[in-house]
């Protein structure tokens, strides 16, 4: 299976994250799965005219394109021209290249939340007119129309994340290479379910604090960050805390809130990222699938039952009170 990778308007961080794949490293992994990069802007040797010839050969059908990966949002500005990003050396905008190449590809994979939904590049009034490959935030229809289907019949596969976990990308490609990814493998926003069927909350080390609503009041404290610090791990999809990042880390494991970077429009939460919006002192956002009345009832009950150990540790930057050891039976 061959892959052409284009970097549209993003930070390149999804590629940098991809290089963090381990056991085996990304090149061994892709080679083992029979995946060959036709060209990647950060990794391939070809430059300049060599690349232009390759793009011509793909565009004219002389090279069949199995997977087109697009990393970064698509810029529509200025004035709808797409000229805020020209693919250098070609005299054509990235918008033009993407709309030309995508219909030729057997599958199209949008890598990262910029490519999927617009992402951080569309933040703050969206100065460059950034949109996703097949979505504009929550709205279907991006650089490609909402009814776009690749040659395989699938819509754009949205590997969302800011950045993407290396395994989300490699496993998506490996599933495609083994013909094991179909429409039923994606959620309603086009994200592969193998990671989007989980919530960031799952396996979060702060879960016991969450259970008793023992909350951190400031960053660096150990308690649950939902009540005060903007954490939306109970609503955000991703297996971050099951899989672990860079040897086992995650945002919440490092003591800062989940900002729902796998979701459309996470870049504009309408409140500061590390503050929880509240109404009458109660957090506005509720955990996914949780009826409000039950959440309120359980929260007040569990808060009343918070053990001293959790109450104290929640506002400390390290474990101050260790679990009680029961004395053995005599």
């Amino acid at each position: 299976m061959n892959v052409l990778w284009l970097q549209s308007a993003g930070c390149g961080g999804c590629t940098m994250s991809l290089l963090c794949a381990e056991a085996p490293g990304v090149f061994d992994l892709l080679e083992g799965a029979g995946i060959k990069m036709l060209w990647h802007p950060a990794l391939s040797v070809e430059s300049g005219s060599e690349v232009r010839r390759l793009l011509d050969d793909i565009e004219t059908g002389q090279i069949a394109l199995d997977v087109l990966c697009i990393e970064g949002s698509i810029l529509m500005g200025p004035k709808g021209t797409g000229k805020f990003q020209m693919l250098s050396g070609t005299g054509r905008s990235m918008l033009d290249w993407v709309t030309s190449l995508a219909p030729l590809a057997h599958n199209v994979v949008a890598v990262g939340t910029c490519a999927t939904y617009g992402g951080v590049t569309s933040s703050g009034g969206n100065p460059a007119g950034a949109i996703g490959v097949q979505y504009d935030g929550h709205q279907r229809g991006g650089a490609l129309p909402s009814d776009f289907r690749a040659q395989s019949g699938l819509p754009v596969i949205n590997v969302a994340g800011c950045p993407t976990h290396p395994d989300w990308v490699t496993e998506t490609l490996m599933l495609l290479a083994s013909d094991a990814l179909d429409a039923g493998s994606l959620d309603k926003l086009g994200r592969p379910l193998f990671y989007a069927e989980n919530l960031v909350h799952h396996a979060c080390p702060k879960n016991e604090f969450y259970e008793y609503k023992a909350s951190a009041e400031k960053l660096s404290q150990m308690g649950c960050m939902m009540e005060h610090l903007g954490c939306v791990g109970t609503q955000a999809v991703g297996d971050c805390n099951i899989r672990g990042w860079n040897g086992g880390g995650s945002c919440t494991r490092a003591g800062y809130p989940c900002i729902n970077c796998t979701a459309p429009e996470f870049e504009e939460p309408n409140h500061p990222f590390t503050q929880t919006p509240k109404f009458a002192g109660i957090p506005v956002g509720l955990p996914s699938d949780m009826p409000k009345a039950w959440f309120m009832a359980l929260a007040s009950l569990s808060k009343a039952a918070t053990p001293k150990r959790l109450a104290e540790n929640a506002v400390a930057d390290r474990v101050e009170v260790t679990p009680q050891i029961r004395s053995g039976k005599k």
Partner: protein
Amino acid sequence: MTERSLLVGPFNRVEGDLEIRLEVADGHVTAAYANSPMYRGFEPMMIGKDPMDALTITPRICGICSISQSSAASAALANAAGISAAPQGALAATLMHGIENLCDHLTHFNLFFCADFARPAYANRAWHPAAVDRFTAMEGSATRACIEARAEILHIVGLLGGKWPHTLAIQPGGVTRAPTARDRIRILSTLAAFRRYLEKVVFGAPVEAFLALSDADQLAAWDTGDAGLFMRIAEDLELGKMGAGPGRYMSFGAYPLPEGRAMKAGLWSDGACSPVETDQIREDLSHAWMMGKAAHPSKGVTIPDEDMRDTAYSWCKAPRLAGQTVETGAFARQVIDGHPAAVDLAARGSSVFARVAGRLIEVARTQILLETWAKAITPEARFMDDFSTPQSGQGTGLVEAARGALGHWIDIRNGKIAGYQIIAPTTWNFSPRDANGTPGPVEAALEGAPAAEDEDTPLAVQHIVRSFDPCMVCTVH
């Protein structure tokens, strides 16, 4: 006399988008124009936001210098508030920053720069079989060893900062997670493994031995590890005579710690070092698709010229220090910090060789610094001090990214961001011409580069451009 014009792009194995236009006469480049062809608008994006949101948004300017951007944003906020981070928090943040810079240098050396030596165009060179074995893109044995070692050392960032890139752990008051005694020994063991990689693969000898090289001749004579292979290639291709820069080097000083910066700040020119007068910085807009007048970043604005006027050719502004171009990067840092081999190289004139050798010197130095910092972690200390955002104030955050001097200038009014300007290292190095017509550093470095009749993407041009390790996503942001 034969004259022609070349458009070089897509220019890959640089981070982000770059297009170079060349005027060539009689087989040599006579003029070069560096175009940064992508504009996203991070500076206008920040206006009206909560100041702390800079810590979430600005790292996402760049996926390879993400912690550098975090560090600069955090420093600018701390500066605006008039506080400094908890000392141990600053240490943990610096440890993460040093790891990012070290990884970037090795990614550049193995994946971005040396891959060109495996090209068939060099098939008749004695070193070519070794270069093919080690550096072939995506396949070379050095390439694969590098990404595995890189992934493992980034475990330290995973442990302290959750993930890389785009961690939110670095805050004006310190870091969000206090490492334990157990974390400290894991960090030291990961660093010990990385030292083994450097000494077995990159240098083929103790890092201290490489660091002890005291002049350019000793550097060039180094013959072990992939560094030794590079020295043989560099001598054969005369990379020491290729791609001279402006001869003025600038560093903001790397790794601000309570006891001072681990590498000195300064401006090096004509063999003498002086302080960087940051109030003398102006961003010239004459050849950039930007509206407005040249300004200091504390007063600058970012308004793109949506008509893309013909007299401009890049989205990149042209920063100048007291009206002059300066080169920034690992080589500049080592010259300013006084490493004898770097100073000797600078005296002989900068080049492709000097930039890559400077980076290798810094790899060795950074390994030792990281070990020193990790040992100094005191788990019982505080890693975060209280911080509250000022209602108004201006702040400057000056740090050193892998690629050189990075500055953030923030203006806070009524509790919101009223102004945010960023000058990244490659903004300096890959700036377009200014109002005087003076080319930016890479544009000047390309003048005189060989471009044979049968080359439409000249190899010498590629070596010169990549020797700067440009980060184009940071450049315009």
